[in-house]
Structures are given as C-alpha cells and as structure tokens.
C-alpha cells in the first residue's frame, strides 16, 4: 500500500489505514449491487402486483359487489330513484378496506343500517377489491400504520395528544357516538355503532371516508394529526378503569334505570314473595304458661 501511495505524499488518505481505500471500494460495489437487487426488481414486481391485484379485485367485485354497485362500480338505482348501491367511483381504497374489513360489506340485506358482522373476505382479497375500487377514481388510500399508530409517541406527546383528541372527539363525534364512544340511535331505525374496541385503522378510515350516513372528516377538515389524537384519546378511554363502578354502556339513565327497575325492584319483589311463602310451622301445640 505504501508503495502505491508514495506519489500521494502526505494526503489525509494515509492516516485512514492501509486497506481503507479497498474496503471503501468493496463497500460501494456491494451497496450498489444490493440496492439494485433490492429496489429495481421490487418496483417491477409492485407494478405487476398492482395490475394483477386490480384484475383479481375486479373478478371478486363482479361476483360479490356488482349486483348492487354495478359492474363498473357506477351504482344501481331503482326506477323511483332510490339507490340499491351507491356509486363507488372516487370512494378510494380506504372506504373498501373499512367496509369490507369490518364485515359491513357485502351487506346481508338492504336496510337502515349496515351492521358490523363477520368479515367475509381475507385481507389479501380485501386489498385486491380495494385496488380495483381505487382504480375507478381517485380517493383516499388505505392509511399506513404511521398515520394512526400512537406507539412512537413519547409519554409527554401522548398526554398532549389525549387532551387534544378528547376535545376534538367531544366536539365532533359525541353527538352520535356518545361521550364514551358506545354509539347511539339515529333516525329511521339507524344507529351510530360503538367505536370501543374498534381497530385504530378502521377508526381512521371511518373519519376519512364517512361510511354510510356518517359525515366525512377528511384531511382538510380534521388533519391527520388530529385524527391520530382522537385515536390516542379513544385508546386512553379504553385503558381507563371505571373507578365509579360499572359503566353499563355509558348510556346514562336508560341502562341505569333499567338496572334499578328490573334487577333492583325485581329482586325486592322476589324477596317479598319468598318471605310470604316460607314460614316454618310446628306440629306441636303451644303450652300456655
């Protein structure tokens, strides 16, 4: 090495050790090689998958969704103008991931409410359906874990997020979903479902896309950071022990009154009947003193 570098005189390279140049060269070769190996085929594979996913999604869509939403997701209307299924152009992948991922779609029957039920498709199929619907028109994409996860917040940031999220939740969500997130009644037989125990991803997607009757809280309305704050608040309420006793669904006088009337008064009546029905009697006569 010293022979090779004689002409270089006192260049700084001398002080880095004898094999530094070689190592650097090797490292550069390995890095560019592996980067190429990692990136370029992967991109090719990705585009392949997307095209294939859309096609597979279209096949699934034609079987499971087209009856109500139309063969191209354009929506189907009845003669008197009622919708059998709304147009899916522009609802985006997030809407599909929410609706199918929570089992709301495919609906088992038309009605006032699309209830949450067992999920019919697996995640791969849901992704394919989402890719197909996303190809119909631009719409919100499926949020990534970085959007809704509160795991990487510091303790202080989390506290601040919970406070902010609580205020946003109480302003925008409690009207329908109850201050505790346990849901509530809506007009014409519908209801706002409980959001306790719902995946953070699905809560995020619901705000983003406004499923069924729910209004949107798109990113221009409630910023992604505020959405994550709401999720942090909801996670905090679920971890919050109920110091005051059983919450009974946080439905206030409805469930508490039911409890008092049915269980409280009911057990008193039962006790009274038991008292009246059971009195031990003796066969002996009383001996007057």
């Amino acid at each position, binding site marked *: 090495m010293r022979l090779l570098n004689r002409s270089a005189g006192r260049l700084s390279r001398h002080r880095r050790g004898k094999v530094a140049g070689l190592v650097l060269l090797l490292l550069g070769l390995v890095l560019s090689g592996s980067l190429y190996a990692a990136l370029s085929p992967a991109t090719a594979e990705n585009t392949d998958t997307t095209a294939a996913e859309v096609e597979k999604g279209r096949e699934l869509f034609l079987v499971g969704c087209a009856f109500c939403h139309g063969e191209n997701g354009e929506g189907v209307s009845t003669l008197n103008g009622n919708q059998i299924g709304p147009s899916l152009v522009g609802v985006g992948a997030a809407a599909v991931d929410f609706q199918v991922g929570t089992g709301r779609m495919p609906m088992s029957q038309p009605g006032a409410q699309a209830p949450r039920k067992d999920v019919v498709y697996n995640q791969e199929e849901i992704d394919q359906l989402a890719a197909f619907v996303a190809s119909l028109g631009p719409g919100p994409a499926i949020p990534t874990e970085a959007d809704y996860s509160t795991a990487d917040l510091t303790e202080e940031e989390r506290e601040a997020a919970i406070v*902010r999220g609580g*205020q*946003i939740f109480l*302003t*925008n969500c409690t*009207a*329908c979903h109850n201050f505790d997130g346990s849901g*509530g009644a*809506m*007009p014409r037989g*519908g209801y706002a479902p409980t959001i306790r125990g719902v995946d953070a991803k699905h809560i995020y997607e619901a705000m983003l896309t*406004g499923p*069924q*009757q*729910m*209004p*949107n*809280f*798109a*990113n*221009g*309305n409630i910023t992604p950071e*505020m959405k994550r704050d709401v999720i942090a608040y909801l996670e905090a309420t679920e971890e919050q*022990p*109920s*110091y*005051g*006793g*059983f919450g009974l669904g946080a439905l206030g006088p409805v469930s508490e009154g039911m409890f008092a009337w049915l269980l409280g008064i009911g057990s008193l009546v039962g006790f009274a009947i038991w*008292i009246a029905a059971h*009195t*031990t*009697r*003796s*066969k*002996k*006569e*009383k*001996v007057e003193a």
Partner: protein
Amino acid sequence: MSAHDPNLPAQAEQEPIADPGLEPHQWRPTDVDPKAEKRAERQVAALFGLSALSAIGFVVAYFAIDGGTENPTRFGYLGAQNIALGVLLGLALLLIGIGIIQWARKLMGDQEIVEMRHPAASSEEDREATLAALAQGLEESGIGRRPLVRNSLLGAVGMLALPSVVLLRDLGKIDIPALARTIWAPGMRLVRDVVGTPIKASDLEVGDLVNGLPEALFPTPENGYPAEEAHGSKLQVNKSKTAIVIVRMEPDEIIPGPGREDWSVDGILCYSKICTHVGCPISLYERTTHHLLCPCHQSTFDLGDSARVVFGPAARPLPQLPLDVDEEGYLIARSDFTEPVGPSYWERG
C-alpha cells in the same frame, strides 16, 4: 241491596252455607320451643350486629382505601373505595331490614286477628254540633251581612300579588335587540371549534361536517379581535349564540331559499348549530339525506333545503349564515345571521 236493616247484627240472618270459621292456629317452632326462640333472638341480634359492623367498616374503608383522583386503589377495573363504600353501606341497610323481617317472622305474634268493620263517619251528634258551631261563627262574623268588610278583605289579599309581580322585574332587563344579533360580522372567518384554525373552502370534501365558531372567539395579535369578547361569561354567551355547523354537499343537491342563491360556496353551507326549539346544540348529521337531527326532541332539519323542519317540535328553520371566501381562499361570513338564532321568544312575533 239486602232488604234487611244493615244495622241489625249479622247473626240474625239465616246464611245458606254455615260459616266455616278459622282453622286452628299452627304454631311456629319458636312459639313452642324455648330453645328455638332463643336461637332466633340470637340470629336477629347477630344481623343487627353485622349491620353495625358494616357501618363501622364503611368509615374504615372511607379513610383506609385511597380513593383520590391520582391513581386510586383499584379492584379489577373498578375503584376499590367506591365498591367498598357501596357494598358496606348496602349491607348495613340490608342487614337491618333482614333482621327486622327475621324478628317479625320468628318472634313477633303471628296469630290471625279478626277486626270488625265500623262505619267511618263521625256520629250524628258530632256532625250536627260541628255544623252548628260553623254556622254560628259565620253568623257572628257577619261576612254575609257586611259586604264592605268582605270585599275590602278580598281586595287586600288580591293586592298582595302585585309586589311579587313587580319584584320579578329585578331578574334583569331583557335586551331584545341583543337577542337578534351575534358577533358574526361581514368578513369574519369561520374557524374550527376547539382548535380555532380557519377553514379553506378547497379543503372540504363532499360529505364533510365541520363544527365551527367565529374567529373572534379565538383572538390573537395577528387577527386583532378584542380579547374581552372571548373571556368569561361573555365567551359562553357568544359561544352559545355563534356556534355553527358547516357542511359540504353536491351543489346540485341544494335547493336554495329565495334570496339565498349566493349564500353557499361550491356546495358549502353554514347554519346556526343552536336548535330553534329549546336551544340544544345539534350536530347529528346524515350526509346521505342532509338531515341534521337534534338529540333533545328529535327536531330534524334538511340542510339542503334552507334547514327546513322536516320532523319534530321546532317551529322555525335553523338560521343560515351567508358565506363567501376571502382572497386567501378561507371561508368568511358575508354578514351576521339575518334572523335571531336559538329558540323563539314572544317579542320575535
């Protein structure tokens, strides 16, 4: 009705079926066995004693278990102190009740008793004497004979109502014009409730719902609004009058009211959030029907049709706030509400 005189004793009647009388009384073990009686006595005393212990336990639990706001002691997912207090107080009351019932069932007399019925009215003489005394009193007071005294008394009692009516005035002067206006002013920005950020018209999507307030309630040196309108009771009053809901729908789904054709911006509409029935804040919004439902009494407003009342007890549509955008693209109010917000009042007509 029987033809017999009801005052005659019952034995005089010939009954078709003989009165079977009462079965011989069956005694309880505690009546015939002194040991059982002692045992029952001890049981009752033990129940009362346990009740007293529970009451003492309540006091102990109150002081011994940490029930504070900072990380109180827990029993599973529930507060330990709350459970202990509830259970012990419940036991203290319940054990007294059970003890009394045990006492009554085991020890108090339980022989069947026959009690004859008697007429409930007083005797004829008492009733006559009372009426006579009343008539004599009326006669002596001369209330029938002296209309001057009677009428002046009635007048004096009637006049007593006046002071209380006049005192009602002290409840405060009603500022009728103030009910009809809010701090919304031309050019004032609409901001999001709680966070106070202005709303860009282009940021809203069809189906969006924003709960909003006027920017004047979030005063900063930059926007230059006076701080006193957003402080203390004034803040509460202003909040209750200026709260709004902003929704965006497809422009062709809007049926604009007469003279309101230019009150919306690209399908963005803004209405008072305060129900016109009794003033509850409303934000239960259905994006598909554009209906806004009040949770208090189910008044329903169609926001696509000038907030027309489609159901419920509200008598008026929600006041609409005319919208515009400023040069930066943020939503601003064109003017104050053109009608009073909130519930109706007499002077509104």
